[in-house]
């Protein structure tokens, strides 16, 4: 069985927790980061720890999902739970595939792939439309204009495939039920601040005449749990600072990427995340210089304190599906290790004493 460690040396869990508590308590501005591959129970416990520490709490979504958070706060959303997609007559895959079996090829479902540069939709789509990366946002705006019954003049149209866009808009406003699928946690190169706004506005416009929903694909085991738990406990989905006057929201400002780049944090607690997969090289390099407490099933090299926990897949608890439905996760085999939630609760106790 894997052991917890302090400075690379095996340690009993309680002793390691005590060192972790001392390290975090001594920090001027600790950061709690992750919560992606964590159950709701662990996410809650992480909020309690962050609150006790007066820490900043953030998740990878502050980078990958920033455009979607902003679009939601500006415009709202048109959503459906996954089972609704069985009504779909039209699915538009906007530079991505889908994990919903309801949108796999079947009679009565027309599948359109919009490929943007190398970001391509499903290979077996019925129709394809290719865009250059710099055409993407203009194409979304043109689609919306067409859906409104407006014209797109030559200056706006530029090099866009106008006829194909006009036809796609026509299909979206005339279908009985349409789903637009997008990548809601895109890779850094595809993080356009306007895309989520433009997609949301397009779906809204089409929905006036037909029934169209936007489906955002998420990455990680429980990103939707993280933003739900943070929202009901703090009011905000990510990037929260716990101060004397309660939680404060700082999209961008309190994002792990920004804080690390600026050297603004002096201790980090990692929960349910492999941070290098979500941070820039500069931020990751800074993270390596900051004293770190890491929970996980795999020991993290360089961590001052490593607290061994069960892997996400072997942890019983509640998890939100990508479409926001809360489910119970019951692993076939239980782990010998304590869960993240248990270890975080002990850490919170140690911080209180």
């Amino acid at each position, binding site marked *: 069985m894997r052991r917890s460690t302090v400075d690379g040396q095996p340690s009993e869990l309680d002793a390691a927790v005590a060192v972790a508590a001392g390290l975090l308590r001594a920090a001027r501005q600790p950061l709690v980061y992750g919560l992606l591959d964590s159950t709701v129970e662990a996410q809650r416990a992480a909020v309690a720890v962050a609150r006790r520490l007066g820490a900043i709490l953030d998740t990878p979504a502050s980078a990958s999902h920033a455009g979607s958070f902003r679009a*939601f706060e500006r415009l*709202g*959303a048109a959503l*459906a*739970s996954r089972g*609704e997609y069985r009504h779909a007559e039209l699915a538009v895959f906007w530079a991505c595939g889908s994990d919903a079996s309801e949108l796999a090829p079947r009679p009565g479902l027309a599948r359109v792939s919009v490929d943007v540069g190398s970001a391509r939709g499903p290979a077996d789509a019925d129709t394809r439309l290719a865009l250059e990366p710099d055409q993407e946002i203009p194409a979304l705006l043109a689609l919306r204009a067409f859906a409104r019954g407006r014209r797109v003049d030559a200056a706006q149209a530029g090099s866009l495939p106008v006829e194909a866009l006009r036809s796609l808009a026509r299909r979206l406003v005339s279908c009985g039920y349409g789903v637009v699928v997008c990548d809601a946690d895109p890779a850094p190169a595809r993080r356009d601040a306007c895309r989520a706004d433009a997609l949301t506005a397009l779906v*809204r416009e089409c929905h006036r005449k037909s029934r169209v929903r936007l489906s955002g694909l998420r990455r990680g085991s429980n990103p939707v749990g993280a933003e739900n738990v943070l929202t009901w406990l*703090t009011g905000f*989905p990510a990037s929260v600072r716990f101060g004397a006057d309660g939680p404060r929201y700082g999209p961008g400002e309190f994002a792990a990427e920004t804080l690390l780049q600026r050297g603004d944090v002096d201790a980090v607690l990692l929960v349910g995340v492999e941070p290098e997969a979500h941070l820039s090289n500069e931020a990751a390099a800074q993270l390596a210089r900051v004293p770190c407490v890491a929970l996980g099933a795999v020991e993290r090299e360089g961590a001052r304190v490593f607290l061994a926990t069960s892997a996400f897949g072997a942890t019983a608890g509640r998890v939100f599906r990508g479409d926001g439905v*809360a489910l119970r996760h019951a692993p076939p085999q239980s782990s010998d290790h304590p869960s993240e939630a248990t270890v975080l609760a002990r850490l919170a106790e140690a911080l209180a004493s």
Partner: protein
Amino acid sequence: MSERLRITGGRVYDPRHAIDGAIRDICIEDGRVVAALPGDAPTLDAAGLVVMPGAVDIHSHVAGPKVNLARRLEPERRTVPTVPDTGRLYTLLGYTTVFDAAVPLLGARHAHLELQDTPLVDKGFYVLLGNDEFVLAALEDGSDDAVRDVLGWAVRASRAYGVKVVNPGGGAAWKAARGTPGLDDALPGRRVTPRRILTALARAADALALPHPMHLHCSNLGLAGNATTTLDTIAALEGRRVHLAHLQFHVYGGEPGGRPTSRARELSAALAAHANVSADVGQVMFGPATTMTADARVGEMLHDLTGRKWVDADLELEGGCGVVPYEYRERNVVHAMQWAAGLELLLLSPDPWRLVLSTDHPNGGTFLSYPRLLRLLMDRAYRDEQIARVHPQGLEGTALRDGLAREYSLYEVAIVTRAAPARLLGLEHKGHLGVGADADVALYAPDANLETMFTTPRHVLKAGRRVAEDGAIREETWGRTLQATPPFDPAVERALGRVLAEAGSLSLEDYVVGADEIGAAR
């Protein structure tokens, strides 16, 4: 060791026991009211204070998917508090029990997660039925017994306290084809009518002896002329028990498609004539609000009206929800009429035991405005000042124009905020201070400004613990989740499983909330 406290010398308002301001001691032991305590028990001096049972909110929106979407939609926190703040802010007003009025089956697990994190108050919810495949399929097969078993299963699986029906059948029709069926119109592609759904579920709630009758949000909310729908609905129920949610939103006259007017007087008369019907008022309060409803049509209508941001979400095999930020303004003629209609209902109320307080938080305004609403009811001079400020056309034809003189007494306030909601909910141990009652108590210092008085109780006790004092939380305790446990024939699970196998993305077990998923998380 048992915990004891004697609240001494307060003026007690306990309508269930017809106590109207008498000076009484209240004795508390281990979270309950008891007949007497030894002489050396600790005391809380209540001389000069008004003592009431903790208040009970019969209709609010505090937990679950749509409430959390509303929180995300408004990070500036206009009207929808976080879960911890919800428990604290209710408690600081002297409210000790709160029900969320609309949780979909598929949102039950999420709602319980939030309730687990809600401190201080006792809490529960009503599960939504009536636009779902499960009930519609059971009705299509023609058996009311089947509907009863679906209801029993749904309440047990979701660990709900009651059942909520929103725009019966209308939600399904809206989703399928933006239909707005009348009571006797078949739903698209079905043989089922809203009347059938309504009566079958009311009968099923009765047959299962649920502690609270069917909690009904009638069709055509917010539309001119909907008073007729509401009156027809009352008639359709043929004397069966029903609780009408936010009645104010359902008492409008006027031509369909035109500007709504108030027909509150007629609805008041209907309440007087139908002892089987109770309601909460759904008062509109001027200022910010957030509309959140399982009536998706209303969301779309308000979005079109405001042009503001809007969350619109569908759930497989059942309805969906809409969330739109909103603002009620004194100088808006429709808002003025809505404000007036709620006050008319309350001031003309034939029976305070059957028409209780709510703002349908946060739909008509937040629960934080309850103290101001109480002042409007209790203080005619203040009310007249407010009446003078609103758009005069909004008052046309309302009883407010006739200068309603009624002022609610403290006794009546104790009825509409405590005793009556507890009785309508079948909560034996709440809403009163008799022996055996839960020791949930609010103590107020009398003040000429009644809003001030009700905004900041001197003391609030929850299950006998002194949890709040002078506007600050003293101790954060954890209340209970209240559930009903009706029986059902397990054979119904086969039929439900068939519906899911045909059309869902989930299995029946995914709908079942475990016993370990409720209760305090910490």
